[in-house]
């Protein structure tokens, strides 16, 4: 049912658009290790796409290919209908793709506010003289972008800690600040690498709600890696399942759950 090029409506009434990003026959090797073996899948406009699989399956590697950290030895990346040449991560970011990391990658020396403000850097381009003397554009864009950032802080309910250095925050809040930084960039595609890892049930619920709200209110397309199956089933529209670098399943949560290969892959693998 997913071969349609154009938009369609899912079983629970969500409208999913056309293909935004398409990975074609991606193969990624690290020396002898094949992290990704000939995988193809697509991400559609407006959907929440989950990537699941046991530890070491190659999920993070896949996100790293999308965000330009790794160049696959084989395969093509298509974005918005065009084949993407090999790009540096900062160039990918400028195309409207933002992400968070499995191991939080915040700027520890800065406050929450400054961290989230860095998410706006691609929207700021005041000249050096304007910045040096803090007149005109530099001042104006600081205020404008600060307003955007304040809305993001408000949205994620972290306004009260805006002046706190991130190094002083507990793990769960750091994850949220990292999401805020990615959101502040106003991305078309948001990549989340285990946004709920290490969280308790309540924090997971909050995070799920934020992810759904982001998707809902801003129409942001989201690709996320997650181990907690109940979360995946709850929030994702479609799921890619990876195991040992191969794709073993792709479809709606219901499809995937009843897929024998997926069940086998998960049997005997300890997951929290």
């Amino acid at each position, binding site marked *: 049912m997913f071969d349609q090029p154009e938009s369609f409506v899912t079983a629970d009434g969500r409208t999913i658009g056309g293909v935004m990003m398409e990975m074609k026959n991606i193969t990624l090797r690290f020396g002898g290790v094949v992290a990704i073996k000939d995988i193809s899948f697509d991400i559609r406009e407006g959907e929440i796409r989950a990537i699941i699989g046991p530890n070491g399956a190659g999920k993070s590697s896949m996100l790293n290919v999308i965000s330009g950290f790794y160049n696959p030895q084989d395969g093509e990346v298509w974005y918005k209908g065009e084949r993407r040449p090999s790009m540096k991560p900062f160039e990918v970011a400028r195309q409207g793709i933002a992400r968070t990391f499995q191991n939080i990658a915040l700027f520890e020396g800065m406050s929450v506010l400054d961290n989230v403000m860095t998410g706006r850097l*691609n929207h700021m381009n*005041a000249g050096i003289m304007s910045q040096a003397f803090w007149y005109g554009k530099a001042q104006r864009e600081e205020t404008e972008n*600060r307003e955007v950032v304040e809305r993001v802080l408000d949205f994620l309910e972290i306004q009260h800690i805006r002046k706190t250095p991130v190094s002083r925050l507990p793990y769960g809040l750091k994850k949220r600040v990292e999401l805020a930084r990615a959101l502040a960039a106003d991305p078309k595609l948001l990549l989340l690498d285990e946004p709920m890892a290490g969280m308790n049930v309540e924090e997971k619920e909050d995070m799920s709600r934020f992810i759904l709200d982001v998707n809902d209110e801003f129409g942001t397309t989201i690709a996320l890696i997650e181990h907690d199956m109940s979360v995946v089933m709850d929030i994702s529209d479609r799921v890619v399942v990876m195991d040992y670098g191969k794709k073993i399943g792709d479809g709606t949560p219901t499809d995937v759950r009843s897929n024998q290969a997926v069940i086998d892959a998960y049997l005997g693998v300890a997951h929290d």
Partner: protein
Amino acid sequence: MIYRESGDFSETYPADSQTFPIKFDRYRYYAVLVVAFLIIPFFINDYWANAILVPFLIYAIAAIGLNILVGYCGQVSLGTGGFMAVGAYACYKLMTAFPDISIVLHILISGGITAAVVTLFGLPSLRIKGFYLAVATLAAQFFLVWLFNRVAWFYNYSASGQINAPDRTVFGYLVTGPNTEAWAKYMICLVFLTFAGIIARNMTRGSLGRKWSAIRDMDIAAEIIGVNPLSAKLSAFAISGFFIGISGALFFSVYLGAVEVGEAFGIQKSFLVLFMIIIGGLGSIFGSFAGAAFMVLLPVLLKNILVGGLGWDTALAAHLEFIIVGALIIVFLIAEPHGLAQLWRIAKEKLRLWPFPH
């Protein structure tokens, strides 16, 4: 309560992002400016100018420059002495080649030339980090000193190999040369430092500063939010070089008047400025001032107290200085990487609550 911020709320984002959001700090800043510009010039004498104030002002500019590179952008540099020499020799060549053009312009252009040179030496930073980058900048330091010693064109083929600053005026007052008055030396350095401080502060609070700090804190994450590491690092090298070049130009033309490169801009100078920002506080403009003041005042104080007061041997006092500075560097690096600036901040936090600590 001496120091208070209660009832002092920012109501707009511009107000919140200004340099001194707390009124008390703002007034103190104005007070410092008034004293520096309107009072000190009338009381300054040669001793105060040459032993303390002028070197402090010039080193503070260099410290601001180095702090942008090391403290804000996280790129180590041991080439400060050599980079100051670039500013000095550029200024000398400009002064002698274009005697009719204002010295102020010469000093600014020297900063620009130094910015270009430092950017060039910053290119390896794209590939190497930390210790290896430090070694590369150390090589720059030795190369530059060698260059200015070797190539006679730089010192206009003078027999001594030295460069000497000719007399130059600003608004009719001498600012360089042996007959310059103390207040004039002080004033020109003060003006440059004031601008350097304001510009550095503005750059570090806006998008440029965030790019630098992002690279410093985690370069991978910086890339993922769209920071081009090449342009971010090189801009830090360039702006750092601009300030260091200005300080070198002032050091030669206004302060020393005559320079032999190895003596004035040797490796000791690189370490001196580095110590200033470590002791003063990495990643802090105020720390650059504090560190420069500390490193300029310490030997003067020791000399006055130990040699002048207690009759110690000069050499012994100098050794004690080494020991104190060495110990402080270790203490600050281990216990308080944000230096005097952080101690000041903590003191303010205490004061803010005083006399009710809870």
